[in-house]
């Protein structure tokens, strides 16, 4: 479990080469210019990163969750924001691949697998975030079509994506009254809010997605009516592992930069790395990251095996890894002194990017709620 096999080593090496050449050198500029590099995403798609753990039948890469966390950590070492968007896209691709019928998979998976067509995951609403089952966007049946009305909030990739996987209310029966419906870009009545101004994640758009009398065929629904909430939550299990991996990648880069800086920076008659309190800080950063990585790999293995405790382990891993990543990045700023606060050194970007990982895909409070409830139920 703790040794990479030959194939995993080759994958990590390939993703590292790709990200080092095509993502890392541009990450700061994309952040500053708020540029969403769809061309680079398409390159990643050609390499198999668009539908990593979807079946090979319609173009997925057929890899495991344990492979995926390695891939996302490696991508995030170059840029957490790009890695995280690729994670969201993969979540959507996997949901379609797993819960769609063959006709739907054949229609949507090939383009998503190569990332020539991007996906957005539309669950959150202005009035329903953590309490997602309270969502109010409606899909009303009209003959062979659904008519959608409502607004989704904070949607990653909105405006650039080709497919919007929308969790919409088809009955007033709480979480059981929600259906998952694919709305293609360009459908009449589909529009987007302004680009949100954000603390980080600037290299990907976050916008409202607005539905006014949007009509799509009933055949765009994944699974049965009422299955939507379960599908959305299952998608998030993998998403949480990936977002945790993205935090580890960002944290790892922050740690490596810090160690290098402390060796180079001289004060009080020697290199700063000789100050034992700073060395202890590095030790704590490394320990946090390795602790989180260990739990994350265990959770990924549990999801691969369909273990009973997979949901709980994914929640724990998400919380631990996103906290570890942010705390490491924040500590790295401190270790760099004033230089840590300058954009040029790349650390404040990592911290800004990783901060949101503690909030989204189920906030870290919600992770504790999931874990706590499971204890209470037993």
């Amino acid at each position: 479990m703790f040794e990479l096999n030959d194939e995993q080593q080759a994958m990590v090496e390939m993703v590292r080469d790709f990200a080092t050449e095509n993502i890392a050198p541009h990450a700061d500029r994309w952040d500053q210019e708020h540029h969403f590099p769809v061309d680079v995403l398409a390159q990643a798609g050609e390499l198999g990163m668009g539908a990593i753990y979807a079946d090979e039948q319609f173009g997925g890469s057929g890899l495991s969750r344990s492979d995926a966390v390695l891939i996302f950590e490696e991508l995030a070492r170059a840029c957490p924001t790009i890695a995280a968007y690729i994670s969201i896209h993969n979540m959507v691709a996997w949901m379609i691949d797993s819960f769609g019928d063959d006709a739907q998979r054949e229609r949507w998976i090939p383009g998503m697998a190569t990332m020539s067509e991007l996906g957005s995951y539309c669950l959150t609403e202005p009035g329903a975030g953590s309490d997602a089952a309270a969502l109010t966007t409606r899909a009303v049946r009209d003959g062979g079509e659904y008519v959608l009305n409502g607004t989704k909030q904070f949607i990653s990739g909105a405006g650039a994506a080709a497919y919007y996987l929308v969790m919409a209310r088809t009955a007033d029966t709480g979480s059981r009254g929600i259906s998952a419906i694919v709305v293609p870009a360009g459908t009449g009545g589909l529009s987007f809010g302004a680009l949100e101004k954000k603390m980080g994640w600037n290299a990907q758009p976050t916008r409202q997605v607005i539905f006014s009398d949007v009509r799509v065929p009933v055949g765009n629904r994944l699974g049965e009516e009422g299955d939507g909430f379960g599908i959305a939550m299952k998608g998030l299990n993998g998403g949480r592992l990936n977002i945790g991996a993205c935090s580890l990648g960002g944290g790892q880069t922050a740690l490596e930069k810090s160690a290098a800086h402390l060796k180079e920076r001289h004060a009080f008659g020697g290199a700063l790395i000789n100050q034992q309190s700073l060395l202890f800080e590095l030790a704590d950063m490394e320990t946090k990251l390795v602790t989180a990585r260990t739990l994350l790999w265990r959770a990924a293995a549990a999801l691969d095996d369909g273990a009973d405790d997979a949901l709980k382990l994914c929640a724990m891993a998400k919380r631990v890894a996103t906290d570890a990543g942010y705390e490491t990045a924040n500590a790295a700023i401190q270790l760099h002194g004033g230089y840590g606060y300058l954009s040029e050194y790349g650390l404040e970007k990592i911290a800004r990017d990783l901060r949101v990982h503690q909030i989204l895909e189920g906030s870290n409070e919600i992770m504790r709620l999931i874990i706590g409830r499971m204890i209470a139920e037993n």
Partner: protein
Amino acid sequence: MSVASGGPLKVLVLVKHVPDAQFDRHLAGADHSIDRSESILSELDEYAIESALQLIEARGGAKAGHTVTALTMGPERAAAAVKKALQMGATDGVHVCDPALAGSDAAATSLALATAINHLGGFDVVLAGMASTDGETSIVPAQLAERLGLPQLTMASALELGDDGVLTGRRDSDTTSTTLQATLPAVVSVTDQGEEPRYPNFKGIMGAKKKKTVTLALSDLGLDAAHVGVAGSWTHVEDAQARPPRTAGTVITDEGDAGVQLVDFLADKKLL
């Protein structure tokens, strides 16, 4: 040969396992051989693999029966070079591996490779990199062509294969660009000016596990150990020394005439 008569195109690509150029290189042991602990597929050979894949892909690729066979000669670890080629898309691999090959110079290397190529038989194109990133003699492809009795089209930066079985390549120098043609079969070496080599995608990485690699020893090739390795080499490294550390440069302190001193310095070195 096969391709001209409408058969599948059979390409052989030579791949060498070399010390990673990212790290300092060290010569070790009595024969001054290079320390090979951190080794990878020679980056220049990735261009040969890319060219080989493009040649078959232009005709429908492996699905249409065309093949790219990756061949390496080297110790056990060198199998990693073949594996990387398979991950990038080569269809099968060959590893010539025998302790007696250790210490081979270019002539002995080209003998072993030529013997293996004849043994395998039937290739339309033999593709190599323009130089290994360790030995860097660039001479193996030319020797190979001579030994195989085939035309050599070396240092090509763009390759095209016509339906008539004529291979066209462009060789660029600082001042001229030459277009060369050869009939198949031919030996070709390619530069790093062609299309960037692809990354192996996940499918390629997973699929490589299922591809076949054969390992051949000298006895399989009917090759006498006396003709290869240190014994069979025409050249021997007598001595090797690390480059002396760089000395401090000339510092010109500006006392009003720094510009003049600088120009004099450059002129002295014939840089102006």
